[in-house]
């Protein structure tokens, strides 16, 4: 049988019978590895190209979440309202934990709503990869889309919670000031932090399934350490007589920093000496955590990009 010339040449150059390594054959024909992690800038660009998917996925999850209930989307408002009522009855009335804080309802609810945003993002992020394995094993997309979508889903809920919070704060006697324009700035910084934290726990949750069991304990400890129910300054320095630096370190905890800044903006009686301006330390802490978490989170998540399908 007369072989075409190219085939003869192929055979002489070492076809498969001459054991040309398949890797070389692949290279000769310009084939690429089916699974390869793109370089970091390319990865970020791919994510940006998937923004419509991320947004649609987040919105769809929010819509489907309440689709089976009779009141439907009304629950997006009812849930934060009911939460606020329970916290107030529990900590404001029954436990009587006013701790000498003026306008305790506003103090408590601001802390609770700000903290809940971070806590829910972290809990959802931990499941974003491990709970979507079937999708990861069927479709191509930058895997960071999933934790990002989960954060955006929580952000959409937060917008409604914030409206509820502002309404309650005004009802407790606070008057809106120009400083309220800083609210979005704090929320943007907090969202940056949440995205980063969500990405980190998403990778951890994908590799260590037990994290989901452990996370409730971690977030509860975090809740108590962040001064949601009490003022860190009063409890640590005034009541427990610990040195000032202990309180300062506790304020550096990202959740405590974001809560502190938000209270400074919303509540006029909070830290009167500063008059709506948060202490510099709190601002620095917020900005640092936002930038650091976002950068580190993306990098850390990306490092494992090609391995999420394995489970």
């Amino acid at each position: 049988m007369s072989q075409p010339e190219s085939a003869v040449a192929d055979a002489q150059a070492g076809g498969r019978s001459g054991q040309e390594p398949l890797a070389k054959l692949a290279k000769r024909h310009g084939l690429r590895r089916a699974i390869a992690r793109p370089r970091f800038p390319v990865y970020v660009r791919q994510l940006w190209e998937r923004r419509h998917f991320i947004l649609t996925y987040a919105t769809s999850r929010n819509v489907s979440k309440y689709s089976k209930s009779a009141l439907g989307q009304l629950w997006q408002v009812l849930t934060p309202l009911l939460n606020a009522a329970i916290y107030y009855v529990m900590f404001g009335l029954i436990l009587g934990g006013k701790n000498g804080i003026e306008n305790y309802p506003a103090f408590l609810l601001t802390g609770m709503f700000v903290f809940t945003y971070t806590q829910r993002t972290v809990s959802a992020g931990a499941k974003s990869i491990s709970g979507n394995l079937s999708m990861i094993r069927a479709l191509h997309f930058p895997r960071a889309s999933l934790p990002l979508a989960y954060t955006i889903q929580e952000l959409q809920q937060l917008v409604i919670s914030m409206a509820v919070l502002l309404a309650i704060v005004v009802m407790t006697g606070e008057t809106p000031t120009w400083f309220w324009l800083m609210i979005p700035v704090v929320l943007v910084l907090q969202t940056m932090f949440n995205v980063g934290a969500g990405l980190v726990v998403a990778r951890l949750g994908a590799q260590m399934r037990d994290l989901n069991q452990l996370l409730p304990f971690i977030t509860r400890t975090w809740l108590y350490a962040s001064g949601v129910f009490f003022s860190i300054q009063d409890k640590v320095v005034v009541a427990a007589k610990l040195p000032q630096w202990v309180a300062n370190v506790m304020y550096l905890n990202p959740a405590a920093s974001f809560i502190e800044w938000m209270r400074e903006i919303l509540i006029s009686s909070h830290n009167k000496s500063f008059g709506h301006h948060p202490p510099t330390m709190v601002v620095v802490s917020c900005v640092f955590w936002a930038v650091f978490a976002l950068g580190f989170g993306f990098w850390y998540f990306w490092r494992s990009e090609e391995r999420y399908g394995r489970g």
Partner: protein
Amino acid sequence: MAELTKELSQVKGDTPAVPGKDAKARSTPEPQDKRPLDVPTGTPTVIVDDLHIVYRVYGAASESEKGNAVNALTRILKRQGRPQMKEVHAVKGVTFVAYHGDAIGIVGRNGSGKSTLLRAIAGLLPPHAGAVYTDGQPSLLGVNAALMRELTGERNIVLGCYAMGMTPSEVRDKYQEIVDFSGIGEFVQLPMSTYSSGMGARLRFAISSAKTHDVLLIDEALATGDREFRKKSEERIRQIRESAGTVFLVAHDLRVIEQTCNRVIWLHKGKIKMDGDPKEVIAAYNKG
């Protein structure tokens, strides 16, 4: 379905880079186990080089080891593996080269690693050892995993299209086509959970087949629904196959494979048992 094979050979004949070569190579009778891998049938599009896939299965442990937060903490701190995790070696050293214009059927018993192999070619599962090289981005036909039953057909179409990587303008272009093809009519405004299983399957097929692919991997997705829709979907698959460079098909229906593929790989317990002409491989498979 006989015209499918005819179509296929026509398509291959049209490929200018490989004038008649591959027909010759294919028709040469040769011992199956020594089938040369780069018979010059054109440009290779998928190269699988001694591929091993290991994936993890959870929940295989005894009840007492599960869900204890303290245990979990100790294990995490000590960096030990999870006792409830088992590793499954699904693909054990598979090697082959697929060429432009190939339609390759993959047969094998349940659990022989067919779907795992497809996922590895698609770049969705990382190899434990070995490698897969591809030209372009192979895609699995199917968006089921991204859809949400509680949402309306409308929303699911948009979501599914974005999940496959379409742009907003592509989604707008394809939307009506998908609705028409699925033939579900006004049901598109109802949640998918209210659909009959046939309607759901039709909509899913219509969404997933709306995109064109370089290398297409079809996993048992052929022809669902009633007879009329089956005809339509077979026609659609033929079109997709023509526009795709290389097609891999996993199906339990051997007739479909024999009619559509020009090469069949028989996987057995994660290894290639036979690779070659559809008639011979399927005959051997039926005997074994």
